[in-house]
């Protein structure tokens, strides 16, 4: 908080009394039905306890009475901003069980849709970050480009948000002929727009004052709390599943993993902007190498998994998304499916980040964590 010079520190009142307030469950900056119980000293946060469960739907329990294919449709409803990525996480676990491979074109379709999903999610972050700090123009800017991605997704998958697209051995449809030209046109447009948007927000004095040095998460804490994705990389840990444990064909592309070292709100913002550029880089390589001919799905067979335990982990826009499937008997229903979502550890670390800050800074910190509450409650 670089606001007061050394000699200008205000003296604290001697008789202060702590009090509780609730933030949420219906609060625009908690990004869903999340309740934060705050112990306050004046305007300063002393302690923060998050309460979950307002939209708990019991997805993991429901999965026990569902077939594997039906669970892919259910995974759309977890992190609805990156539904296409959740689909892939589930499907990779099923592929390990069924022991099927994916043709080259199928892999390219997967990577391209993954990166489009990542850009869409980061654009929502960009919009909400500006919106939470009070700039409603920014909110519309972020959603404007996201709309184009959703138009592409709608043409390819048939739905804007709940895509339900990937299947073991490939995907449900081949991409239409218009897909590659559309993505190319979109990338050119986005490059132009991102230049404007960075000019709009990245150097803005209000953003700088409200985010630099706010909500610092140290490297040790980020690892200890199990943070992942941009939050972890903003704290200086170079960990990305795409690089550390490559799935699909991510090892064939040339891209950087941006890492920042301060761990404050501004770094968490910058890292997402940098990741949009990296995703665009991957998409351009995909467009160059995209195979025109060839199968996009391996031979279709019924989704039946042999007895065993299967684990997959992927890097979604929010962080590490892992699926653990336990098949007790050979068949088309799981015994148990567990999902490890990225947002829960981030909210768990919120107390550490927000302590000692003002309540208005909590809004900034929440925005840069970019949590999706339905994914936490499931």
């Amino acid at each position, binding site marked *: 908080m670089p606001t007061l010079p050394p000699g200008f520190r205000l003296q604290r009142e001697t008789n202060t009394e702590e009090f509780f307030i609730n933030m949420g469950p219906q609060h625009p900056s908690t990004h869903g039905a999340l309740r934060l119980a705050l112990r306050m000293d004046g305007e300063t946060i002393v302690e923060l306890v998050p309460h979950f469960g307002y939209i708990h739907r019991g997805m993991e329990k429901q999965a026990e009475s*569902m077939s594997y*294919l039906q669970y892919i449709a259910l995974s759309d409803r977890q992190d609805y901003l990156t539904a296409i990525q959740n689909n892939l996480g589930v499907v990779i676990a099923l592929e390990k069980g069924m022991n099927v491979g994916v043709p080259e074109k199928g892999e390219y379709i997967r990577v391209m849709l993954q990166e489009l999903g990542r850009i869409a999610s980061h654009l929502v972050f960009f919009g909400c970050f500006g919106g939470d700090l009070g700039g409603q123009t920014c909110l519309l800017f972020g959603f404007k480009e996201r709309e184009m991605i959703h138009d592409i997704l709608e043409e390819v998958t*048939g739905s804007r948000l709940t895509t339900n697209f990937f299947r073991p051995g490939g995907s449900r449809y081949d991409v239409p002929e218009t897909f590659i030209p559309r993505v190319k046109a979109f990338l050119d447009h986005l490059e132009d727009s991102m230049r404007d948007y960075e000019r*709009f927000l990245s150097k*803005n004095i209000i953003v700088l004052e409200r985010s630099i040095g706010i909500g610092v998460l140290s490297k040790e804490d980020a690892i200890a709390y199990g943070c992942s994705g941009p939050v972890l990389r903003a704290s200086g840990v170079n960990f990305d599943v795409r690089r550390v444990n490559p799935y699909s064909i991510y090892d064939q592309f040339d891209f950087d993993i941006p890492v920042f070292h301060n761990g404050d709100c501004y770094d968490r913002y910058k890292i997402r902007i940098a990741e949009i550029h990296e995703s665009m880089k991957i998409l351009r390589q995909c467009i160059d190498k995209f195979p025109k001919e060839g199968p996009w799905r391996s031979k279709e067979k019924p989704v039946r998994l042999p007895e065993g335990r299967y684990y997959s982990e992927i890097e979604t826009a929010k962080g590490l998304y892992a699926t653990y499937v336990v098949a007790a008997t050979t068949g088309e229903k799981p015994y148990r499916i567990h999902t490890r979502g990225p947002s829960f550890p981030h909210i768990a670390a919120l107390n550490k980040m927000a302590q000692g800050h003002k309540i208005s800074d909590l809004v900034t910190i929440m925005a840069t964590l970019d949590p999706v509450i339905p994914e936490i409650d499931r």
Partner: protein
Amino acid sequence: MQENITLIQYFKRYLKRCITGPWSLMCGLSVSLKYFFDPRRIVTEQYPENRKTLKMHERFRGRLEMIEDQDGNNLCTACGMCERACPNASINVLATKNIAGKKVLGRYIYHFASCTQCGLCVEACPFGAIRMNQEFEVATTDPNSLEMILNKKEGQG
């Protein structure tokens, strides 16, 4: 939290920000104005006005419907694969027997209210008897209209 800087350094930075701060705000405002006045950057769809030209993509998943020829015959054999594939039990396939004693489709009952339009039924159908149409204006004031019978005729078996 306090920084280890001298008072002079602090005021130097303060004065610098007095200049750069308003300039950064002006930069942001110029972007806003550019988007405000440039008509090429308008992306809004004029929705109720463009209703006649607005077409959904071929793959768009709207309401479930049965593929029928001109006489209203369908390909359904009442095998019940779609019923089993549905995650939320939106489909009830009621089979009956025709005059030859063969199992045919009686009524194909579809509960639109509980349908999530995931499209698993269309994927599961081995005969290609159903599809999802491009209808997207599906709001209604009558809840009873959401329970529908999709087939006009009994199945051919």
